[in-house]
């Protein structure tokens, strides 16, 4: 597997702290004053020129948030966050409404270049013959800077733009669907996001349309002390299909950065949404200092009959991950899937899983979770599968596997299963294993280095999930897995 060898080359390129994306970009930014108040919410809304209904929506969320408590049930530990000591809005100064790539700050373009993300359409086209096109929405700090392939997508009727733009150009769609899956009352972080969300991606695929290319958004936190609150909304109308990928990176900072995003997916009758995440926020240094707090609410609503939503996530970064991409299986015969690879190394803490809420008849769901813990990390799978009274013939299959590397880390599985309908069939399998010294020695004796051997074994362990990723991202992800586990043995 070439990926294994490349992994090692990549690892060598990485600076001492092992985090490749740890550079920061020197870009002038506009920030709202520190702290959170109604005035800040108004400031954000005004800055984005939003209509009155959206400001009211934000204010309602803000007022509710003031009455809420941070959740403490997850198996993660961190000092209390002072929410008044954060900036809630930061935007690159020069990018208020670039018309084309020429108007985008070249420093910004260089940043994305360094990240290996093609923002110039011709570069994508000039790539390998037959390479599939990927449309990209790049979000820097709180603002979407550029979206590629817009015209080509528009020809197919697909709307792919930043959510701020969608508020202006398609208010009826945003108004109808925003908050319809994750209401402003949902949870502490989602409510906070509703009050202060800055930008994110918006996708609408009209009835019967199969989106002609992969869509992807790259999120990047750059500004210091700044919370990042993106809001993503994807709607697949009847019979539509879309595959979407998000990638995340952040510079190395000593202090912790807060990331509280909300993603809402809506699939109508016979529609299918495939949502993949490769999350590689800065995980903190070798002593556990710094890193991103990733407190994210992701939920898909299979609103229509026979609709399907599939979440695939590869979580390698962040100091703390608190994330449960879920499916509400409302439509009859709808299907939810969750494929997860969560890798923790160093002092990272991961508490992640999914919820499959079976409401409709003949709904089915599948959960495949692979947790890999190394170093001093803690890795928890937390999941809920529930069948409500009317969910006749609900079916679920869950498989949670954990792999431990070394003896200072922990893996935990916390599955909740509720069936209120006697016809439900739920299956749960779970295993915990270790990379054995014998397996390692076997690989070494065949000439593989320790890093290559671990990368190979782990890639084998996560293979079922890797296969769910769009082809274009598989190789990259295999490398990322190797990099994340660098220094985990020996």
């Amino acid at each position, binding site marked *: *597997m*070439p990926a*294994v*060898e490349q992994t090692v080359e990549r690892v060598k390129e990485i600076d001492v702290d092992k985090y490749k994306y740890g550079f920061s970009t020197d870009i002038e930014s506009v920030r709202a004053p520190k702290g959170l108040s109604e005035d800040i919410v108004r400031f954000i809304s005004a800055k984005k020129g939003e209509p009155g209904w959206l400001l009211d929506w934000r204010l309602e969320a803000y007022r509710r948030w003031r009455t809420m408590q941070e959740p403490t049930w997850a198996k993660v530990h961190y000092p209390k966050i002072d929410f008044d000591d954060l900036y809630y809005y930061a935007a690159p100064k020069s990018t208020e409404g670039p018309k084309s790539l020429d108007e985008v700050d070249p420093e910004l373009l260089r940043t994305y270049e360094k990240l290996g993300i093609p923002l110039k359409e011709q570069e994508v086209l000039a790539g390998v013959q037959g390479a599939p096109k990927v449309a990209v929405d790049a979000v820097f700090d709180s603002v979407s800077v550029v979206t590629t392939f817009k015209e080509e997508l528009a020809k197919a009727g697909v709307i792919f733009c930043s959510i701020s733009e969608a508020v202006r150009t398609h208010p009826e769609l945003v108004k109808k669907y925003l908050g319809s899956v994750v209401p402003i009352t949902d949870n502490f972080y989602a409510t906070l996001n509703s009050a202060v969300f800055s930008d994110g991606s918006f996708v609408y695929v009209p009835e019967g349309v199969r989106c002609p290319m992969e869509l992807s958004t790259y999120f990047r936190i750059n500004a210091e002390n700044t919370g990042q609150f993106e809001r993503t909304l994807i709607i697949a109308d009847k019979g539509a299909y879309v595959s979407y990928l998000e990638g995340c990176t952040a510079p190395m900072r000593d202090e912790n950065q807060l990331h509280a995003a909300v993603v809402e997916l809506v699939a109508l009758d016979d529609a299918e949404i495939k949502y993949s995440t490769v999350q590689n926020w800065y995980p903190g240094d070798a002593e556990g200092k710094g890193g991103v707090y990733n407190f994210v609410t992701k939920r898909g609503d299979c609103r229509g009959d026979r609709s399907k939503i599939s979440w695939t996530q590869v979580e390698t970064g962040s100091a703390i991950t608190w994330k449960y991409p879920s499916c509400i299986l409302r439509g009859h015969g709808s299907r939810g899937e969750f494929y997860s690879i969560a890798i923790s190394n160093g002092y990272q803490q991961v508490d992640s899983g999914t919820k499959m809420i079976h409401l409709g008849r003949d709904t089915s769901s599948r959960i495949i979770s692979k947790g890999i813990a190394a170093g001093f990390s803690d890795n928890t799978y937390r999941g809920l599968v529930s069948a409500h009274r009317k969910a006749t013939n609900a079916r679920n299959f869950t498989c949670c596997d954990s792999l431990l590397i070394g003896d200072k880390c922990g893996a935990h599985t916390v599955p909740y299963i509720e069936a209120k309908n006697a016809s439900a069939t739920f299956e749960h399998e779970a295993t915990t294993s270790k990379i*054995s*010294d*014998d*397996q390692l*020695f*076997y*690989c*070494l*004796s*065949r*000439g*593989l*280095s*320790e890093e*290559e051997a671990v990368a*190979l*074994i782990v*890639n*084998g*362990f*996560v*293979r*079922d999930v890797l296969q769910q990723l769009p082809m274009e991202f598989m190789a990259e992800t295999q490398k990322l897995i190797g990099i994340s586990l660098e220094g985990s043995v020996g």
Partner: protein
Amino acid sequence: MLEIKNLHAKVDGREILNGLDLTIPAGEVHAIMGPNGSGKSTLSYVLAGKDDYEVTDGSVTWKGEDLLAMEPDERAAAGVFLAFQYPMEIPGVATMTFLRSAVNAVRKARGEEEYSTPDFLRTVKEKAKDLKIDMEMLRRPLNVGFSGGEKKRNEILQMSLLEPGLCILDETDSGLDIDALRIVSDGVNALRSPERCMLVITHYQRLLNHIVPDRVHVLSKGRVARSGGPELALELEKSGYADYGDEATAA
């Protein structure tokens, strides 16, 4: 080519090798026989560089270099290959993927060019055919659910792909029926060459009917108790290991 002098090694604090001397010239095949617990497998692990095997005295020189100073992967690059008695299973990793990773890692370390995909496939196909290995088997995860015979043939396939200078076969005959034994032995014999030496570890004489050694050494209590030609193996077959500290005689 391989020179072992006064080798002492401990496992879990227990001394298993106790002043072992052995020299294998280029082109020769030497067999190591001996009762259970005489240190046969320990010798193979020490040569391959397994972690828990602590060398307390003595030296091993391979092509003039200090073998014991090398990491296991460096030894592989230097041409040492151990065919395991119990090959490890690695779930999810296709055998073909593993072979390719290993071959390219070793080629790179030796300063050779990595195989291109078509070249690699052609090479594997050829070698697999000789060992009667089905390509379907190579698509399965490494050693997972393989029969005893499949595992051993896979070891020999790896051996021929990695082109080692020193082949160590640790009880390669265990768990093989007579047909599989012949296929595996033919595979090993095909690799005999003037530039290569082999160390064949076995409990029984029957393997040595197929892989005829130049020399036979009997191991007892961690050292070579007796050396001779191929006829020594036949003698042991009759008399058993009773003279070498084992109450149970060879069946």
